[in-house]
């Protein structure tokens, strides 16, 4: 045990598995009820079709032809949610991989919770796409008839590769801990023994695992950049859509995803620290380190954003300017400006404050900033996707307002993600046991 971690032992870490209070059951029950509500909403959508959502075709047949005729946006909060979850998934394994590649021992304590975040977020992104399909029963056609001409296939390939990489990476880094748990928790030995697959824990075995993980980490970093780049290509390559069609999109999306992912990892680290009193493990120093990374990436993101807005506003093509005007002064202006000022401005101030003196770092306040940032980034993706679709070049079309059913289904991914995460922390240690062993 390293002295730096104070009194933290393996039991300190394992209390997330062994200690289960009433609050936990209440939390899970609430999540289950909400998931039930989501499943009901999804059932409605599956039986009635996507007509229950607020999405409509880009279209402007005359309004008097019926209530559903005027145009709208063919993509809405499901696609927004998809980009959001891909963004969340981003930092997870990336943080973990950089910890390994750059040998940042200090941050190893948050590596595991970041990896699990990726693992949970990616299926949620996939699920958002399934919600969005008109024919979810034919989703297999993507494999049967898929062609690489379509950016959507690039997405499918990159995301599944990323997902497989994450699973293997997580399993290999978890295997030693699982073996250890088999000894620690005799009641569940049958489960852990099978899962550890004859892990023996010899020095040569550990060394082999570490070597494999190092190479996997090296492979995962470029995959991670690819994943969000191809998500941006789904939008950025569409010449038909003003304000999407630009070179900056891939960089913009990747940086945005890293902001969202690092913020999510910060939120999680703070929550676990508060929940299990892990101040000795997740020290102020670690949290401050993450928040500095977050601050730097956020500055790059805001810089890219300003460059993008300036290019449009100063002498933009008329179609781009129309979308921008719609966003700045149109029906979405209230959420756009709230997002810009409250969602980005306030977290930026909170994160920038410690520059002027280290004592200004406040973990709780930074936690609030990290949550606000993620909400703001969700809205930001919405303001990228929808206004451009509502301003087709030949005519203006209607407005997009998500319906309650649609919102229930979208929120369902959050409840499911929380449930999966909770299930993980009750089965496996959320902090690498090597950390407290001082290896």
């Amino acid at each position, binding site marked *: 045990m390293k002295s730096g971690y104070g009194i933290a032992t393996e039991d300190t870490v394992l209390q997330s598995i062994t200690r289960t209070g009433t609050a936990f059951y209440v939390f899970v029950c609430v999540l289950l009820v909400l998931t039930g509500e989501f499943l009901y909403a999804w059932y409605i959508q599956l039986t009635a079709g996507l007509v229950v959502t607020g999405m409509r075709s880009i279209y402007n047949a005359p309004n008097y032809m019926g209530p559903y005729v005027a145009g709208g946006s063919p993509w809405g909060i499901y696609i927004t949610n998809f980009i959001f979850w891909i963004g969340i998934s981003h930092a997870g394994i990336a943080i973990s991989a950089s910890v390994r590649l750059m040998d940042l021992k200090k941050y190893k304590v948050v590596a595991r919770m970041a990896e699990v975040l990726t693992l949970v977020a990616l299926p949620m992104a996939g699920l958002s796409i399934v919600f969005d399909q008109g024919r979810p029963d034919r989703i297999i056609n993507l494999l049967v008839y898929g062609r690489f001409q379509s*950016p959507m296939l690039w997405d499918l390939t990159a995301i599944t590769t990323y997902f497989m990489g994450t699973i293997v990476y997580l399993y290999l880094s978890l295997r030693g801990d699982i073996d250890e748990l088999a000894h620690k928790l005799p009641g569940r030995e049958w489960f852990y023994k099978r899962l550890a697959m004859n892990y023996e824990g010899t020095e040569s075995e550990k060394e082999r695992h570490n070597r494999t993980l190092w190479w996997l980490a090296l492979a995962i970093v470029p995959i991670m950049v690819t994943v969000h780049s191809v998500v941006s290509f789904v939008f950025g390559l569409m010449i038909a*859509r003003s304000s999407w069609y630009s070179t900056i999109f891939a960089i913009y999306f990747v940086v945005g995803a890293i902001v969202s992912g690092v913020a999510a990892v910060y939120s999680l680290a703070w929550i676990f620290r508060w929940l299990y009193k892990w101040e000795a493990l997740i020290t102020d120093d670690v949290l401050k380190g993450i928040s500095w990374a977050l601050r730097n990436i956020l500055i790059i993101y805001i810089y890219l954003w300003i460059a993008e807005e300036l290019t449009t506003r100063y002498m933009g093509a008329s179609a781009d300017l129309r979308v921008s005007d719609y966003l700045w002064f149109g029906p979405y202006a209230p959420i756009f400006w709230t997002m810009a000022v409250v969602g980005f401005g306030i977290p930026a101030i909170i994160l920038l404050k410690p520059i002027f003196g280290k004592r200004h770092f406040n973990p709780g306040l930074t936690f609030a900033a990290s949550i606000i940032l993620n909400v703001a980034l969700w809205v930001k993706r919405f303001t990228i996707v929808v206004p451009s679709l509502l301003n087709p070049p030949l005519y203006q079309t209607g407005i997009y307002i998500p319906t309650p059913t649609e919102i229930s289904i979208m929120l369902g991914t959050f409840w499911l993600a929380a449930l999966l995460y909770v299930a993980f922390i009750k089965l496996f240690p959320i902090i690498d046991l090597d950390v407290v062993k001082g290896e």
Partner: protein
Amino acid sequence: MVIDLSRCLGCWSCAVGCKLENDEPIGIWWNRILTNGGQEPDTPSGDYPNVKMTYLPINCQHCDNAPCVKVCPVAALRKRDDGIVFLDWSRCIGCRYCLVACPYGIPAFNWGPPVQYPDNSQFQIGNPAVPVRPVGVSEKCTFCFQRVDVGNLTPKCIEVCPAGVRFFGDLDDPNSQVSQIIQTKPTVRLREELGTEPSVYYVPPRNPLIKV
């Protein structure tokens, strides 16, 4: 196809004929008539008294370099050898990427179960050769390939147009009627700068068409 805007009356006959021929459900028009002034039909453009009224019938442009075909992930949208772009309803997964990619806002989506008025169960209105569309797929103009393939019929919009606005033929054949018109009259294509190479040519109206 060539559309002579100097002849168009804005009567919507092509739209209605198309809707009947192809069984298009409520809320979906493969053929629409836009006016330059605004959203509603027959909206003049300009400030009173200097107003103009021009029509722009719009249907699928059957682009040579079609963005919708490019982005379709399952090849439900395909291009035939004769240049017609069509959508295979039995394969479409309903991702609506074609709606997003099309610069002309052409593909429409069956958000709910398609409803036709009058109902096809009482008597057949549309062409029986048009398959029944399921819920949750996109659809768009096919240049009535069910008619073009059988004998020498033209698309329905041409047959029903009272003013002879539209012409249909082989653009590769220099002696066809459409090629003759393109050679003799000035023509424009919609949003040519995007490089989509549309196959629909418009002859501008005598009062020049304002901003297409």
